[in-house]
């Protein structure tokens, strides 16, 4: 049996200028908050932005963005709903926020399905909140979206950094471009390139995009953007 879905994935993303894959190989390091805040920040700067939560087992971008009562529109596929200027797609639209107990191959299948039917239209940036670590799903995303650029999130922990080093070696082997590394929960006292300081007020802003954009976390992430995207005008 031939699977026809992969043939249209590049077509669905043809209007997207850049695909940013936010990765994190350890749990709880802030990958999803970073991906969601990055998407909000880019949209606030006037960039046409999409956010695709591919972390099916731990989908949480909808909680971070406070997405309620949204559902994609059926129009020659699925058009993601707009939330605070961000086109947002997540498996939670189809799971009623229940657990999605999928094995690796099933996650891959579901991701391929959504990549094949989602109509993103014209975007400057599509931010992917990647499945954690490296597994069938993560490798499939890299295979089907070879132009995705990795933005890796880590923490100052020796464990997270060691895992990060391994991930960077793998990306190099897979010839996946790495935009940069963001050190989240950094103990640095002053803002520094690539570092996002621990923000005790962040938790209270989750679910409220306007409040989230006003946090020290979002300000530090914003300061990292020139480091991530170079001199590109945003």
């Amino acid at each position, binding site marked *: *049996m*031939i*699977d*026809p*879905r992969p*043939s*249209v994935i590049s*077509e*669905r993303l043809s209007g997207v200028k850049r695909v940013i894959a936010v990765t994190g190989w350890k749990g709880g390091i802030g990958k999803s908050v970073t991906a969601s805040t990055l998407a909000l920040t880019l949209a606030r700067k006037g960039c046409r932005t999409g956010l695709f939560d591919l972390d099916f087992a731990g989908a949480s971008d909808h909680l971070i963005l406070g997405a309620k009562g949204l559902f994609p529109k*059926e*129009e*020659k*596929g*699925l058009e993601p709903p707009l939330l605070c200027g961000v086109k947002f797609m997540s*498996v939670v639209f*189809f*799971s*009623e926020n*229940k*657990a*999605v*107990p*999928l*094995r690796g191959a*099933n*996650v891959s*299948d*579901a991701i391929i*399905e*959504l990549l*094949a*039917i989602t*109509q993103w239209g014209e975007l400057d940036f599509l931010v992917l909140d990647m499945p954690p670590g490296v597994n069938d799903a993560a490798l499939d995303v890299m295979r089907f979206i070879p132009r995705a650029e990795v933005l890796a999130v880590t923490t100052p922990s020796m464990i997270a950094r060691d895992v990060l080093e391994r991930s960077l070696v793998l990306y190099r082997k897979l010839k996946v471009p790495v935009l940069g590394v963001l050190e989240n929960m950094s103990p640095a006292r002053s803002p520094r390139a690539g570092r996002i300081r621990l923000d005790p007020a962040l938790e209270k802003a989750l679910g409220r995009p306007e409040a989230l954009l006003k946090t020290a976390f979002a300000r530090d992430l914003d300061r990292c953007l020139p480091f991530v995207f170079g001199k590109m005008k945003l």
Partner: protein
Amino acid sequence: MHEWALAESVIKTAVEHSTLKKFKKLKEVGVVFGELQAIDKDIFVFALDGLRAQYPGAKDCKFKVSVEPAVFRCKACSKEFPLKGLKKTKDEAEFIHFVPEMAHTFLKCPRCKSPDFEIAEGRGVGLSYIKGSK
């Protein structure tokens, strides 16, 4: 019209395959609908017809549609079971229509109630054969 997106994937795959095999004419394609995804055949065929102009290589191609019954195999107790008889609401059926893997969220093994089962057959849309002339 979520069927449109899948119809486009079918016609594009058939035309690409035809080019790869150096067919002069793409004649017939077998399209299999997995019972689980519950694709609306009328909408799908309507979409295919609309897409022919965009894909001239498939202008005269026949698309023969068949439905493959869904078969599940429980990973916990090994029971094999069909879709028929499994309870789901209208909304749940709609979610499975968009993403068949949502079956793991809403359906369970009728014997041991586990959601850890394999969709052995009849998941979604596939191409069973592509015929052309050289």
